């Protein structure tokens, strides 16, 4: 049913949101020009010298960026895998819980870290792993040398991946738990009658029952390959662990807003945005094609 007066009202409703979107999301997109300029704040974006792909060429010449890219991909892929598997295992264990009264309290507790900011969690984590924290105090009981956990390049990546999984597994398990609820209970009863044990029921009914969900989550996480998590790393790292912990986003922040190399930082940021966009779009396309998942 089409009505001109109605249409006017629809447009009217869109105005505030789209003005906001235009000013904050679309206008900055034009700032991408900086990536192709030798941007100079005095001349501004209109008069700065145009240098073509010079910034991109320079980006690949400095040794920093290569290491930063490696760090980003290792941390991001580690998180993607961990965030897929750990919540799955947790959901399966919770699903097998025999004391049903504990189900809610456990779920309530494990979601909690997800809603707390990385600023706060990082402070707490640094406290716990710090020299005067409980972990080093505990190790002293066994006469072990105190360890500066977040000052060691070799420990930084596992700690970042581990704490990220810790923060999110409760939340990420929700989707699995919803999928587990969707499995037809009569299948389990039939299997029990046939004498199938617990493990074989897990293997032949539960896992096949949620395999679409697992595949869907895996596909949708594709877009995170270059997303190592700025908030977390920015709040946990320090110059001692730059060699293994500095990632694209933190590098862009320092290069752009601390060292004021605007053009170079914009160029690196742009490369990340473009690659991520392609991967996310690919993820959505695959999800639609194979699992019938549509975002709209």
């Amino acid at each position, binding site marked *: 049913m089409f009505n001109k007066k109605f249409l006017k009202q629809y447009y009217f409703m869109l105005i505030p949101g789209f003005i906001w979107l235009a000013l904050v999301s679309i206008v900055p997109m034009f700032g991408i020009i900086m990536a192709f300029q030798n941007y100079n704040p005095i001349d501004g974006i209109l008069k700065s010298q145009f240098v073509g792909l010079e910034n991109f060429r320079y980006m690949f010449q400095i040794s920093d960026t290569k290491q930063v890219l490696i760090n980003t991909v290792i941390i991001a892929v580690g998180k993607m895998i961990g965030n897929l598997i750990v919540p799955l295992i947790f959901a399966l264990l919770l699903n097998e819980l025999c004391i049903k009264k504990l189900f809610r309290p456990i779920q309530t507790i494990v979601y909690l870290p997800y809603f707390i900011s990385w600023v706060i969690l990082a402070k*707490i984590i640094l406290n*716990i792993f710090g020299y005067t924290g409980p972990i080093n105090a505990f190790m002293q009981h066994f006469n072990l040398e105190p360890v*500066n956990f977040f000052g060691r390049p070799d420990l930084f990546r596992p700690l970042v991946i581990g704490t990220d999984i810790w923060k999110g597994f409760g939340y990420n398990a929700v989707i699995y738990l919803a999928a587990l609820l969707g499995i037809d209970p009569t299948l389990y009863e039939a299997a*029990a009658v046939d004498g199938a044990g617990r493990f074989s029921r897990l293997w032949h009914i539960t896992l096949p029952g949620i395999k679409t969900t697992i595949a869907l989550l895996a596909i949708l996480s594709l877009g995170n390959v270059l997303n190592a998590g700025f908030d977390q790393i920015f709040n946990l790292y320090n110059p001692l662990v730059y060699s293994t912990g500095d990632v694209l986003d933190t590098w862009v922040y320092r290069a752009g807003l601390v060292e004021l190399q605007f053009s170079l930082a914009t160029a690196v940021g742009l490369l990340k945005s473009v690659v991520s966009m392609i991967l996310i779009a690919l993820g959505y396309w695959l999800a639609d094609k194979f699992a019938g998942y549509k975002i709209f």
Partner: protein
Amino acid sequence: MIENKSLGSKIFDVCNVIVLILISLVCIVPLWYILMVSVSSKEAVNAGLVTFWPVGFNLLSYQKILGETAFLKSFWISLQRVVLGGALGVGCTLLVAYPLSRSNSQFPKRNIFMWILIFCMLFNGGTIPWYMTMRSYHLTDNVWGLVLSGGLPVFNVIMAMNFFRNLPSELEEVAYVDGADPWTSFIKINIPLAKPMIATITLLTIVGHWNDFFQGLVLSTKQSNYPLQTYIQQMVVTQNYSTMTVEQIKEMVQLNNQSLDAAKIFIAMVPILMIYPFLQKYFVKGITLGSVKG
């Protein structure tokens, strides 16, 4: 289940309960620990004596916070930001989501707006251009900068749109026959039906504003304009660990009042803990709202 459980199965059940309780403890103990540090004496904390129970219990840290104007001001800024940002964010989200939830025949240009939204969700100009733009709008050092600089929450818009689309259309059709226009139908029919969804996006928006530290850090030139999370983030002066020995680091840690810092951290968590029961109730819906069934 009708079967008798085998011994192995029973052992698994017991282990499973223990493991799940341990996992839950791992999630809650760090938060508990920071609370314990905040109510313990400074000396006990510095000596590393505090683990799971307060040592030298006192509330001095909380008393001290009441005298710290910088902390209180940051708290106030964050509070303003959450209220203004929540209202504006949810308002704009619903207003954009409703027209876009109409069918192509009702709103022929719908797809153009949809694609603009999707594009903005997938692509962004990056941190530096965003920062330059915000600066050119003079959105630095004020609460409106913090409210507006995040932009329209596109993901919430899509969530809200999917929810509106799945509402039964009969009521609305009857209203249209009675001479109602979209605005009336939006306010009188769709909004009341969408209460759970509105609760979800309100909570997501509030948590997002409360937890953000980056915009506060980049858009404030003065410490006195920091929102709370940025204040907490900048609390311990960033120092160059690489040039310090273990003893020096320990000494530096002693100079900080860890108990006071812990109290500030805990207070910054309190609002989230307060709305947590609501978060729990609505966020499961939030996850599933994001997708359209078949």
